[in-house]
Every structure is written in structure tokens, then in C-alpha cells.
């Protein structure tokens, strides 16, 4: 009896596992065999991306594409952008990459190229096509390797600028208009006080301090109005003085900007939740009328319109200390691009899709108010019926200035970056702002000083390690004495420096 029972259980388990294994392959077979009519073999290409703001664009575009090419199906699963790196990592490890996939800074083009995982796209980009893009788009280590194209841009490379959004409803309630949107710190304080007088639970400014990369970015941008030699940039080169060739996080610009934010907090002009929320919670509170201003990237425009269903807002440049001009680094590389897997079985169909991508998807991104196109002419000629998007794009276009980049000077600097990643300190400007606002960091200058010292040591150690391995690279490659901030650093400037 007991034996019969155990045999019965085992068989149930065995059948269960066989069935669950079978069902997957059945679905796949059904998909492939459904379109038996027509002379072309039905094909499905998979596209993984990490841009949630572009999801509606892709969905609309795929419908048009599939109508044009009925035998090609494009599968675009929605992936949470925070999980994208891990998902890509798993796909690389199992050598199971989708046909087309977004780039990710954690797996740079040069690594993918060395591992033999990406397909070259030279036949899509004759020189005439390349010229349609912004200067600096085709850079070694990012979009090209050994002269061939390995990545196709997705967004305009001149992004994203940090801007200040203003809520027109909140301003109206406080008796203010668009003209009162502050351009300098003093104006922000004055306007802020007026808003606080009118209502006790509405605050002038709200920030998502937990999103440290956003905080670090806008601090750098605001600081560029005070000490422009510190190139406002993301990642490991934030706070780097490209004129001197060293890190200077404790520059006057960064210190004063952080102190200003703390002062706003102390004066109750900053929403009290700012310290414990991230940027999307902050923008949600902004859309809900709890704050008059929020600082975010230009990508918030489409987020507010599509996800928060909120349109009564405007976009303005960040207020700087004395209303002086600000800028952000455009070092030529394309941070948002797509690669094609080398093992793709449907390269011809992928090419058709990428061609369609450049003709139509870039256009749709503009029309749907998501982001600017990588192709210059499209940005100039497309009429977009979305005033806030146009406003944001205009500010963004004015903010980005072509700036020096060590990779253009010496390709070995890419290896230095890989080394630096392992050696750099874990603190960054955003986290230090959090600690300073929470009262944990009492000596701001001292902490920033230590950050610069640690970063400089890490950079020097990385350079030593890479040059010890045979490559020729030194700190000189990171120093650009003939650079004037706010003036585009064009190719002849690199030649001026000589080798």
C-alpha cells in the first residue's frame, strides 16, 4: 500500500515536470508555424531596451513596421530599467543575447567587442549617413571600434540637461505667474517666501535626494556658473577640473551650491520629505501640487504628461548663483545607443528594422515629445505640437557645449576608466549632499577635500597600472590647458595640443 502510494506520488511529480517543460516549446512552435501563407518565412526579432520613456514610441512604431513588413514580428518586452543591467549580464553570460539590445554603461562597447558579441553595422552607415548626425557621435570606444560602427544612437547625444519645472497651478494660487520664475538664487528665496506665506503645506522646491546621480548632476551644472573649469559631468568624472587635470570636488561652485540647498532646507523652503524620497516620488508630489518647483532631467517632461497626466507646467533653466550662465559636458559620446548581437539569425530583417528606426522612430520620439533625435535635420525640421517639450529641448540645446574628452586624445584612457571603476571611492556628490542635509557631515569642505584626494589617488594608481601594462597613457591626457569653458572644444583644439 505504502509502496503504491510512493510510486503514485513519484509518477505525479514526474508527469508534472515533463508537462511544464513541454508547454514552453509548444508555444514557440505555434508562433513560428502560424504564418504559413506568403512566400517569405515569418521571422521574429527581439529588442531589449532600458528607456521606459520610449516604450509608447516603440509600441506605436512596431505597429507601423509590422504593417509595412507583415512577415517580420518585433518583440519588445518591457524591462524595468533598474533590472536591465542584471538581465543583460545574464544574457551575456549565457551567450543568449537578443537580436537588438540597448547599450549599458556597465558593459561598454569595447568589452562587448572584445568578447565578440556585437555585429558591425557599417553597411547601414555610409559616410553620407554618418554626416547627418551631430559632430562627435562617431567616437571610438562608444559607437565605433577599429573604425567600424558597432552601435546606433537612440537619443540625441546632447542630453540630458537638468532643468527646473514650475507648477502653474501652484504659482497661480500664490498670486505669481511665469514671469516670476526665478533665475537666480536670491530670486528663488524671495519667490519661495511668497509661496510659503500663502499656504502652509505647499513648499517652493522639492527634490528627490535619494536619487544620488540626479543630485550630483544638477549640483555640477549649477556649480558651472561659479567655477566653470570643473566640467559638469556624470559618473566617475564629475568634479574633474579638465584645465588642471585633477579632481576638485571642493571647488567654490560645488561647495556653495550644496550650502545653498542646505540653507533652503533650514529656511523651510525645501519640502521636508525631500531627504527621504527619490526623484519619481518628488515629481509625483510636484504634479500633485505640493511644490512649486522641482529639479529633474528634461526626460521628466514626457513622464509628467504621460504618466502623471499633468500638463499645467513649464520648463525653465536652473537658477544659478547670480543668474550667470551654466552648461553641461557634451564630450561627443553617445550614452544611449543600441547594439546588434553577433549571433543574430535574422540580420537582414534587423537591418530593415534599424533603417526604419532611423527614419521613423527618431521622428516619433520627437512627435510624441519624448526626446530629441540623433539626426540634426530631424530636430530642425520636425514640428512638434508640445510646447513644454519644445521649451525643454530649447533649454537643453543651449546647455550642452562640446567639451574636451580624454578618450579622443588617447584611446588607452578607456583602460584607465576600467581600472578607475575598481579603485574609486563609493561616495559621490549626491550621497554627500544627503549626509550634509541629514546633519551627519558637519565639515562639508573637509569631506569634499577627502573625496578629491581619494579620487586623485585612484586615478593616478589606475594610470600607473595601465601604463605598467604597456599602454602609453599619463595624466597629461586628462589635462587641456587650451580649453575655455563655454566655447566648443572642436577637433582643431585637440590638434593644437600636439602629441
Amino acid at each position, binding site marked *: 500500500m505504502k509502496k503504491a502510494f510512493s510510486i503514485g506520488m513519484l509518477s505525479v511529480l514526474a508527469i508534472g515536470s515533463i508537462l511544464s517543460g513541454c508547454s514552453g516549446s509548444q508555444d514557440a512552435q505555434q508562433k513560428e508555424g502560424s504564418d504559413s501563407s506568403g512566400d517569405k518565412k515569418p521571422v521574429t526579432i527581439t529588442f531589449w531596451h532600458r528607456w521606459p520613456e520610449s516604450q509608447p514610441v516603440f509600441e506605436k512604431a512596431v505597429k507601423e513596421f509590422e504593417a509595412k513588413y507583415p512577415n517580420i514580428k518585433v518583440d519588445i518586452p518591457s524591462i524595468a530599467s533598474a533590472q536591465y*543591467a542584471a538581465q543583460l549580464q545574464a544574457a551575456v553570460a549565457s551567450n543568449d543575447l537578443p537580436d537588438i539590445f540597448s547599450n549599458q554603461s556597465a558593459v561598454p562597447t569595447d568589452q562587448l567587442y572584445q*568578447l565578440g558579441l556585437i555585429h558591425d553595422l557599417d553597411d547601414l552607415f555610409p559616410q553620407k549617413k554618418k554626416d547627418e548626425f551631430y559632430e562627435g557621435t562617431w567616437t571610438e570606444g562608444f559607437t565605433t571600434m577599429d573604425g567600424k560602427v558597432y552601435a546606433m544612437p537612440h537619443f540625441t547625444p546632447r542630453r540630458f540637461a537638468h532643468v527646473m519645472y514650475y507648477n502653474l497651478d501652484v504659482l497661480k494660487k500664490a498670486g505669481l505667474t511665469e514671469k516670476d520664475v526665478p533665475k537666480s538664487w536670491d530670486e528663488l528665496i524671495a519667490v519661495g517666501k511668497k509661496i510659503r506665506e500663502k499656504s502652509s503645506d505647499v513648499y517652493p522646491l522639492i527634490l528627490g535626494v535619494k536619487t544620488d546621480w540626479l543630485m550630483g548632476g544638477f549640483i555640477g551644472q549649477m556649480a558651472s556658473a561659479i567655477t566653470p573649469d570643473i566640467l559638469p559631468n556624470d559618473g566617475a568624472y564629475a568634479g574633474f577640473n579638465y584645465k588642471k587635470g585633477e579632481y576638485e570636488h571642493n571647488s567654490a561652485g560645488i561647495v556653495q551650491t550644496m550650502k545653498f540647498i542646505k540653507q533652503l532646507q533650514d529656511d523651510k523652503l525645501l519640502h521636508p520629505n525631500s531627504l*527621504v524620497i527619490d526623484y519619481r516620488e518628488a515629481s509625483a508630489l510636484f504634479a500633485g501640487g*505640493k511644490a512649486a518647483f522641482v529639479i529633474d532631467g528634461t526626460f521628466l517632461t514626457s513622464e509628467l504628461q504621460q504618466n502623471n497626466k499633468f500638463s499645467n507646467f513649464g520648463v525653465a533653466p536652473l537658477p544659478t548663483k547670480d543668474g550667470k550662465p551654466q552648461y553641461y559636458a557634451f564630450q561627443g559620446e553617445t550614452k544611449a545607443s543600441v547594439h546588434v548581437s553577433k549571433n543574430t539569425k535574422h540580420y537582414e530583417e534587423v537591418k530593415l528594422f534599424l533603417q526604419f528606426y532611423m527614419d521613423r522612430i527618431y521622428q516619433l520620439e520627437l512627435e510624441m515629445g519624448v526626446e530629441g533625435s540623433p539626426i540634426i535635420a530631424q530636430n530642425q525640421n520636425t514640428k512638434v505640437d508640445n510646447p513644454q517639450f519644445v521649451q525643454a529641448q530649447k533649454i537643453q540645446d543651449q546647455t550642452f557645449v562640446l567639451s574636451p574628452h580624454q578618450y579622443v586624445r588617447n584611446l588607452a584612457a578607456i583602460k584607465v576608466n576600467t581600472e578607475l*571603476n575598481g579603485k574609486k571611492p563609493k561616495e559621490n556628490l549626491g550621497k554627500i549632499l544627503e549626509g550634509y542635509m541629514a*546633519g*551627519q557631515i558637519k565639515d562639508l569642505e573637509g569631506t569634499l577635500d577627502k573625496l578629491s584626494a581619494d579620487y586623485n589617488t585612484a586615478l593616478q594608481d589606475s594610470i600607473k597600472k595601465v601604463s605598467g601594462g604597456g599602454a602609453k597613457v599619463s595624466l597629461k591626457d586628462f589635462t587641456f590647458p587650451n580649453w575655455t569653458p563655454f566655447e566648443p572644444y572642436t577637433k582643431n583644439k585637440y590638434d593644437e595640443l600636439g602629441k
Partner: protein
Amino acid sequence: MSAQTSVVAGQKAPAASVRRERIRYRWAYLFILPQLLFFIIFTMYPILMSYVYAFYDWSGFGPLSNFVGFDNLIKILHDEQFWNAFRNSLLYMAAKTVILMPATLMMALILNQAFFKGKVFYRTVYFLPVVTTTSIVGIIMKFIFGNDQALVNELLMALGILSEPVPWLGQAGTAMLVLIFVGSWKFFGMMMVYWLAGLQSLPGDVYEAAKVDGASYWQTMRSITLPLLMPVAAVILLLTVVNSMHVFDLVKTLTNGGPFFATETVDLYIYNYAFSTSGFPQIGYASAAGIVFGLTVFLITLVLGWLAKLSKDGKDARHTQSAKGGL
């Protein structure tokens, strides 16, 4: 003849039962096999591989490369931030244990009283937090302990205890307190149920004998309940400590490492290195951190396990002593 057959029969009988035992063992191993395979593949193998990865500076992409020897381990031991996370983990574990051990015992004692009505109701209510999803709890508690029009602040201000809202999660000290409080609240029911099980396993005749002798409640507690509970207590202590050493999902959603690393625990530290999105992930370095922490937890477990064994031996010794006719 009959003697011979009886001898033969005697020999045959044990042989048949031995064969039956062997068949039973074989079925037992067969049933254990799947779980053992899962254990080896999904637990042992990753642990072993993490020891291998710790000797490389590897980003997780592509083949294993860049052997660095003991560099990662040396860097970990010198990293101020790692020891900060280590301290936070230990602090969380110690505080949670110190708060929960007596509190849950008291609650279990109360709920164990025969005359107490609504026992089942209270047991369920206190156990509910245990079955909730920790990450969701973290997100909701973030709003409850928030700064602007949040429940806790509003309540305390309405009661007159506070005049101004306190930024619970915006300060290093209070953020850790909130973390410990929420963690304790979440695990309370589990420990209470452990104690209840322990209490219900105590022999009833000892209590009756004590009642006959006229012992008061506190005398019973001190001389019977607590000593008899020692082995159970040691095991519960072990379980609580091991459970509180690992707190990832709550920290990630509630404070994400707190204001400037104030509530960063080792789990979060390892996660940030292994799955970093800014720059490249550092699997090797994270593995080294995992090894150091894993060995620490292992050591603590050994010490507590030895304590548990001691207390059980003590209980057994007392039993044999009383059986021999001693006290």
C-alpha cells in the same frame, strides 16, 4: 529437527527485516535526492564559486579574468565603509535580539494561560506581520515615518509629545531606530510562536506537583519554567541571531542605506558592489565581502550552537541527577 528449523527460522527472520530496512533506506535516499541536488546546485556551488571569484577582479561579464590574489580580501579588511556596514549589521542584530527575546517570551507566557480568552485571535494577529512581504512593509513604513503629514509624526504631535515633526528617516540615529523597530515588529510573531511551542512542550506534572506544594506564580516561573526552557531558549536565540544578521529587503526599501550610509548593512553593501549600475559591477570584491561576513555568521552560529548544546547537557545532567535521587 524442530531445533534446527527454529534456528534456521531465527536466522531468516532478521535477514528479512534487514532487507526491509535497506529497501526503506533506499526509498528515503531517493526522496532526499532531489532536494540534495537543489541544495548542491543552488546553495553549495554558489558558495564555493564565491570563494573562487573573491580572488579575481571580475565584473561579471564575459569569462573569469584578472586574477588579483588576496587583494580583494586585504582591501575589504581595510575598507572603512565595510566595517561601518559590519557594525550596522551587528548593531541591528544585537538590538533586535535584546528587544525580542524577553518581549516575545512575556507575550507567549500571557497567551499560554489557560483562562485567557481569544488566544487564537491574538496569536493570529501577532503572527500576521511575519507573513507580509518585507519589501512592501519597507515602502509603507517609509510613508508612515515620513516627514510631511505622516502618521507617526501627526500622532505624536496630536498627543502633545512632539511640537515639531521629527525627520525619522532623515537622521542617522533615528533611521537606525526605525529600522530596528520595524524589523522587530515584523519578526515578533515568529519568536512568540517558537516560545509557545517550547512552553507547551514542558511536562505538566511538574507544575501540578509545584501547585500541590503551594508555589506562587513567580516561584514557579523562576524554578520550573525558566530552567526547563533553557534549551528551547538557546535554540530560539540561535534562530533569532541568524535571522537578524541578514536584513536586505527591509533596508533597501526603507532607507536604502540610510542618510549617508548610516543604516547600510553588509547585505546591502555586497548588493551595491555586485550589481552596481554606476560604473562596472565588482563581483570579485563583493564575493570577498560575502566571505568575510559569511565566516563571521558561521562563527557566531557555532558559538550559539555550542551554548545550546551546553544548556541541553545541563538539563540532561539535572534530570539524571534528580533520577539518581538527588535534588
